[in-house]
């Protein structure tokens, strides 16, 4: 019998949901004993969210009536295969606007072998070491907020930052009064989808008139490293983190070519006539440096992170096609935030953060981008995102969690034009500068 991809995907998703519901309502879901030598632990979660914005569409069709295309379903199986070897896998189906679309994928799958406390080997699809909270970004019940600060944990980069296929080492070393040092090193390949968040962000880097379309993404190499100092300098609850990672990938893109020279006039308006499209290979290298601090004092947690990403883009396009400023780019994006959460009781937690992101730290006000023609005058705010967030978390039961969250946002960086942020002419990207985002999310985990 012939099945479409969508039918197969929906059947897989339905199977996953039915299995999870069965596990969730069975009397003993924590561990399923398979044989005499080991047990398989099974855990899972289901979430459903709602997003609404008064202006701009954030990651989905949120403006107006809001969007319920915001959910995750995950289930994991893990077992101690031997005294030194642990294996596990987590499947996830998620949806956030155009991302995920509830396709069942492997979130992580890992074989973890322990030589010593200071030397452990991991191989498989491994959670990527980025910042304080990246490894748990898919697990809603682990945090106060619905959205982690987008400056450091943008949803658009979720696919490549979530996990990578490869191998790595980690371990911990006590270093006396300095604290307990954990190191993490990973090398491999972080998959990017041809129509994923990274590809869509790339398409938004050039004027929409050029009709840039990413055809294929090919990750060359990915690596990541972190040093984490717990109980730093003998201060209980103080964690310091330093991280460095890199992505190198290419993107096969189609873009219009044209006749006439130049294609742009003095105001950077496309004046050449369109001829056809041609395929070019874009080469992108990213290096990211992160420094973070987290301090826990009783039920209070303060966290702050600073991240700087260096982007090197080689776009093999003639100056006739793109403004000269876009041919080769070497710039730094800047991101930082501070957050505070407090758990008042077993069932109530309050959190707030302020987060800032600048797409180019040397062009914070977007004036340079307007001058070179990559941003329309009046849309300079696409070069930054300043987000003030307040979140309430209610632990209704040990398994059920409800979150309510509001954001007051200045700017529109890290968002997608094809989420509906296009002007009436159907071509020009347009965003309001100041806008509000509201979110609600219900999650169940076992």
């Amino acid at each position, binding site marked *: 019998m012939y099945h479409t991809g969508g039918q197969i995907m929906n059947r897989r998703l339905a199977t996953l949901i039915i299995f999870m519901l069965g596990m969730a309502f069975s009397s003993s879901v924590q561990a399923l004993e398979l044989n005499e030598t080991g047990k398989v632990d099974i855990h899972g979660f289901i979430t459903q969210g709602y997003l609404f914005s008064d202006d701009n569409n954030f990651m989905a069709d949120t403006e107006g009536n809001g969007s319920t295309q915001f959910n995750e379903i995950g289930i994991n199986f893990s077992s101690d295969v031997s005294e030194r070897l642990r294996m596990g896998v987590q499947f996830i189906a998620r949806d956030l606007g155009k991302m995920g679309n509830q396709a069942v994928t492997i979130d992580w799958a890992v074989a973890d072998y322990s030589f010593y406390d200071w030397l*452990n080997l991991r191989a498989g699809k491994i959670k990527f070491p980025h910042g304080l909270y990246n490894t748990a970004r898919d697990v809603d019940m682990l945090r106060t907020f619905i959205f982690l600060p987008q400056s450091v944990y943008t949803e658009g980069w979720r696919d490549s930052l979530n996990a990578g296929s490869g191998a790595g080492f980690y371990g911990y070393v006590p270093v006396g009064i300095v604290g307990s040092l954990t190191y993490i090193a990973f090398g491999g390949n972080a998959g990017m989808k041809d129509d994923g968040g990274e590809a869509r962000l790339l398409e938004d880097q050039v004027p929409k008139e050029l009709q840039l379309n990413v055809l294929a993404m090919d990750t060359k190499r990915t690596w990541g490293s972190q040093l984490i100092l717990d109980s730093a300098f003998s201060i209980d609850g103080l964690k310091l983190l330093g991280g460095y990672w890199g992505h190198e990938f290419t993107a096969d893109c189609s873009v219009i070519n044209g006749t006439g020279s130049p294609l742009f006039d003095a105001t950077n308006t496309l004046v050449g006539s369109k001829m056809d499209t041609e395929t070019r290979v874009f080469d992108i290298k990213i290096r990211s440096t992160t420094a973070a601090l987290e301090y826990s004092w*009783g039920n209070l947690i303060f966290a702050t992170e600073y991240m700087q990403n260096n982007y090197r883009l080689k776009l093999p396009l003639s100056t006739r096609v793109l403004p000269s400023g876009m041919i080769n780019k070497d710039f730094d994006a800047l991101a930082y935030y501070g957050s505070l959460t407090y758990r008042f009781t077993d069932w109530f937690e309050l959190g707030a953060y302020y987060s800032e992101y600048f797409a180019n730290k040397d062009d914070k006000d977007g004036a340079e981008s307007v001058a070179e023609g990559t941003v329309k005058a009046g849309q300079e705010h696409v070069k930054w995102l300043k987000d003030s967030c307040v979140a309430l978390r209610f632990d209704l039961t040990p398994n059920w969690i409800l979150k309510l969250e509001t954001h*007051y946002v200045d700017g529109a960086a890290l968002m997608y034009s094809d989420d509906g942020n296009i002007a009436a002419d159907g071509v020009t990207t347009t965003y309001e500068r100041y806008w*509000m985002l509201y979110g609600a999310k219900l999650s169940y985990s076992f």
Partner: protein
Amino acid sequence: MRRKCLLGFVFLAIVGMYYSFPGIAVADDLIVIGNRSVPASELSPTDIQNIYLGKKKMWDNGVKVEVATLGGGELTDRFLKAYVKKNSSMYNKYWKKQVFTGGGKPPVTFEREKDLVEYVSKTKGAVGYVTSQSYTDSVKILAVMH
């Protein structure tokens, strides 16, 4: 409209605070116990912290560390605060994170001290904590170095 929404969130936060100040845990005497296969006779507070955070996975003789906890209560609160430097909520969250990110196996949890002692006595490499009244000679006491 935006200001009203923000004020609404602040109001909900204040209501939450009013109903939510936690009680203070009362200390009780506790001892750290281990299976007879555990090679150590004493542990430092840092050892205990690393064991209960899953960072110390093997004993010096190569036997795997198996961790047991009690499911909440004053004794657990006191133990976690004294040695793991986390409260129960943060400790549970820590292990949920490990479980959902492939980071490790959470401690085995018991509601009764008697059951924990029995588990430790029968499980190679196991370690746990109980009040001194629950101690039996089926397990060994691991002295805590200060």
